[in-house]
């Protein structure tokens, strides 16, 4: 069996999404009063367009720009925790943790931890400068937003 290329895999995924989208579009309830077009028409048109475009994408041969470039082989030899894709995954997890801890722990602590932790993880070794920058920027942002712009930010465990 021939292996699917990247465009074909994405096209199949998009086709599934468009079918699901169309199924949801058909469930949009009709407005009680008759109108030239109702809330469901536009989504149905979009769903069919995406389906049609998925078919075209399936038939389109991927160009060089449609395929991810090879990653630096030197970076691939690094310990697992420092490899390029691991960096992306860990950053994503750190951001998810930040989102979940922001309210209970507070803006200042979580933000300083995020900036300091990620910069150190990405390879910045001057820890004092890192900490001072993280604290300075975060406090600056906090004071600007809360005191000048009147935007509430969660204080969490700190009494500020």
């Amino acid at each position, binding site marked *: 069996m021939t292996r699917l290329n990247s465009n074909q895999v994405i096209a199949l995924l998009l086709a599934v999404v468009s079918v699901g989208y169309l199924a949801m579009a058909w469930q949009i309830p009709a*407005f009680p009063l008759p109108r030239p077009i109702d809330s469901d028409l536009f*989504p149905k048109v*979009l769903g069919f367009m995406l389906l049609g475009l998925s078919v075209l994408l399936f038939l*389109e041969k991927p160009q060089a720009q*449609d*395929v991810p470039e090879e990653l630096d082989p030197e970076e691939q030899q690094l310990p697992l925790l420092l490899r390029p894709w691991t*960096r992306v995954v860990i950053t994503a997890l750190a951001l*998810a943790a930040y989102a979940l801890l922001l309210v209970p722990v507070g803006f200042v602590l979580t933000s300083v931890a995020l900036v300091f932790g*990620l910069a150190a993880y990405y390879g910045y070794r001057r820890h004092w400068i890192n900490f001072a920058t993280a604290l300075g*920027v975060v406090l600056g942002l906090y004071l600007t937003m809360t005191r000048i712009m009147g935007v509430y930010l969660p204080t969490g465990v700190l009494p500020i």
Partner: protein
Amino acid sequence: MEAFNNLMYGFGIALEPINILYVFAGVFAGTVIGMLPGLGPISALALMIPLTFGMEPSSGLILMAGVYYGAIFGGSTSSILLNAPGVAGTVATSFDGYPLAKQGQAGKALAIAAYASFIGGTVSIIFLMLVAPLLGRVAVSFGPAEYFSLMVLGLTAVVSLSDKSLVKGLIAAVVGVMISIMGIDLQTGTERFTFGTAHLLDGIEFLVVALGIFALAEVFYMLLKGGGGKEQPRNAIGSLKLSKQEIRQIAPPVGRSSILGFFTGVLPGAGATIGSFLGYSMEKRLAKDGDTFGKGNIKGVAAPESANNAACTGSFVPLLTLGVPGSGSTAVLLGALLVMGVSPGPAMLVDRPDVFWGVVASMYLGNIFLLVLNLPLIPLIAKILDLPRPLLLALILIFCMIGVYGMSFSVFDLLLLLGFGLLGLGMRLFGFPAAPLILALILGDIMEESMRRALQISGGDWSIFIDKPISMWLLIIAALSLVLPLAKKVMVKARG
């Protein structure tokens, strides 16, 4: 005379101390963010939107406009010093700017870029003042059918002029429209695609998508490409002085490219990037020493730099007079205006002259600030390029997160931001252009509303879109913008 009076009125607003501060803050932030390789004007604009919360619309737009043209202005610095354009619109500048820097003439290239940008920006503001009110008068007669067709043209133009696959561009646009219509349908009160969660009843905020697809995705991409610690050595700046002969040499290209750039910027889909390439290739053809382009010809720096800044200002014409952005950057600007409660369009010139003329006048001021920032202060500002990359990436992440949280106070939106960041990374890796998605996101629900209003007027008769001549021609041009690149491809294949 009327334009002069209006401009004086605009200066009355732009010269308020707080607005002078906003102009400076905008162009400074734009210069710095535009300078950083990878972060383009869209990221710069999206990152700055949270600062406009609660601002007067005229002040907010003055700030955001400053960020936009400041980013285009500043993008040339990294093009010249690092051969790593901070902004797509300054790629053409690197063709001759970087060779000049390698020859020890980086200062000269930076000075030419600054003068050319200043003149391009200033000339185009004069055109903006003259053309925008005229177009605004024409646009007053536009009904919903014409608006719908205009938005279709805006989308197809952005898709067809992107350097990526046409099909992928269209997919990005369709997905953008799909995201834009999520939430409660304001015309019928019906819930659409909310997945039963109250978080999606108001739809998805455009800032969440813009920051995710552009800024966050860019950080992820840099992490994949070794952004952890590798720093690129930059060329020394050297003298910024230009001789009289050099000034005489660059004057004609700057004049020509400024005009060309402005009109390129007015066209939907063709922004600073296309403007700069057109300016560069025009001068290469016209020059007697065209064969030295690409090897450090000063005209090869002057032409794209004046064109890209002029195009940037030109792109304000459709945004402010028609309320329809012609590019991803102006789409984000429109989003920022909508957040501030202002709907640009022909009525804005009458209803909110403070916003229109205030921002036009502020551009003169901003260009002067930029000249100061990019000439005597450039050796100082260029030190930003030495900022450790790991720290910079971590700071961009926190700006994204706080930008979203400060707007919606929603943890759900932070998680959505993360999702869009990963989606943006996937789009980037597999060659999907992001600009059509963001433009469609902004235009999607307005498009649907225009379409429904047009059909309500016609009693459901779809021929309204071709019965009205302006609407019909806009749709024909939209169709051609998609068909012509395909036809060209087929012809090239047939020949080759």
